[in-house]
């Protein structure tokens, strides 16, 4: 390979590596490269344009955008499932949930955490981006005490903490969103911009709903949410043994042939149970006396 070609390739590779960081730095370098004759004007144009795109793509979704995404995901779910209107039970679930969220890694979100019950016997729990969390009647009635209820809610809070909902959006779609916004923060939208962004918003909502309702998160994400939930429970004083207890109930049901809803999106209950049990025993979390909480749980469920 000729020396000129090696320099040419080295130049392009260097700027490919710099791209995600700073488009301006790349631009200064490509100008120098063009002046030295190492790259052509066309090379410079392509590198600069790609760097700008990469920089924009690097912008993560803001908490406020995540909030609007979460509202749309929740609105979609509530278009399918009925909202349980039992005020007392909803308040109780919110009390448990809010107390847990407060000791989670991200206690405050743009719009805060809100917990709602879906009026279905199906077993399911869904965390929308931003902090709206749904838990089905079927899921609640399988819990034997407040510790087990806390384990369900803490698991969903951990998904919100980890921004798993946002991560369900296809990278290419988010790149399009960021590109559509343009680099200039000033100015207002034209009607075409709104139409394009709305369509991208719709696609993003569908990505999240599809993951929540149909495909489920990856086993790694579920495992991380389980581990996060155990930490949250332990921080506030719920007995972490509530989680393996609840998973054992679900594992038994899965073994008996449960495939709908939660079981289709959360396969491998026995594996999850084994990992959670290992964490509990490794941390020597002994069973705690939770009779005082059992009493109030029994009055609601």
């Amino acid at each position, binding site marked *: 390979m000729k020396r000129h070609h090696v320099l040419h390739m080295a130049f392009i590779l260097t700027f490919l590596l710099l791209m995600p960081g700073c488009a301006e730095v790349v631009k200064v370098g490509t100008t120098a490269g063009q002046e030295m004759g190492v790259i052509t004007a066309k090379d410079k144009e392509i590198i600069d344009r790609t760097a700008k795109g990469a920089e924009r793509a690097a912008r993560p979704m803001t908490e406020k*955008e995540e909030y609007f995404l979460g509202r749309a995901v929740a*609105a*979609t779910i509530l278009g399918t499932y009925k909202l349980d209107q039992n005020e007392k039970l909803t308040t109780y679930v919110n009390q448990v949930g809010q*107390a847990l969220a407060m000791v989670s890694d991200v206690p405050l979100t743009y719009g*805060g955490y809100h917990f709602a019950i879906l009026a279905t016997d199906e077993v399911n729990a869904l965390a929308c981006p931003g902090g709206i969390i749904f838990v089905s009647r079927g899921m609640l009635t399988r819990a034997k005490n407040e510790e087990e209820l806390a384990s369900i809610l803490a698991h969903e809070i951990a998904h919100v903490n980890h921004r798993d909902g946002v991560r369900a959006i296809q990278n290419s779609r988010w790149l399009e969103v960021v590109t559509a916004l343009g680099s200039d923060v*000033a100015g207002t939208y034209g009607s075409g911009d709104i139409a394009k*962004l709305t369509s991208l918003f719709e696609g993003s909502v569908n990505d999240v709903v599809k993951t929540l309702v149909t495909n489920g998160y990856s086993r790694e994400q579920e495992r991380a949410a389980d581990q996060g939930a155990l930490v949250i429970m332990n921080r506030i004083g719920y007995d972490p043994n509530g989680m393996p207890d609840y998973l054992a109930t679900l594992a038994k049901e899965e073994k008996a042939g449960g495939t709908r809803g939660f079981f289709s999106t959360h396969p491998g209950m026995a594996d999850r149970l084994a990992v959670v049990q290992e964490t509990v025993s490794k941390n020597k979390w002994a069973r705690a006396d939770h009779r005082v909480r059992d009493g109030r749980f029994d009055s609601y469920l």
Partner: protein
Amino acid sequence: MKKMLWCCLVVLLTMGAAAYAATYRVINEEAAVRKDRRFFAPIVIRVPYGEKVESREVKGDWLNVTYRGTQGWIHKSAVTELKIDWTALGGGKAAESTKDEVALAGKGFTPEVEKAFHDKNPAMRYDLVNQVESYRITDEKIQAFIRAGKLREPGGES
């Protein structure tokens, strides 16, 4: 040579002092600034989304901030630090930038986009989402719930 070293020292100290007081932007719809660094401490002032607060002290997950002359503690998850964009110095201006700039400018996934999305999909139950968002438990009630259940109150260090 000595003069040069002194100049460098002065520049470094000035930069250090400037870095000491960090600026943050509120990323919650409304963030509470509390008297002490714990969740159930009395609220001294509420700060709306997008506002800047200055902080000179960080303890655990809490920042001691000043907003409109009122001092108190804000949880770190309610704010994002504004970083100085050093690349802008060449242009004679040190810009502060965060990922929120675009959203603050009213771009991105905004209420405008939500409205267009809802108009396009009228079956979406935003009315019920608003109901769910109205489920709020006051600090006093959560604290009472935690105490009645013999749970641990979130401490200042968390």
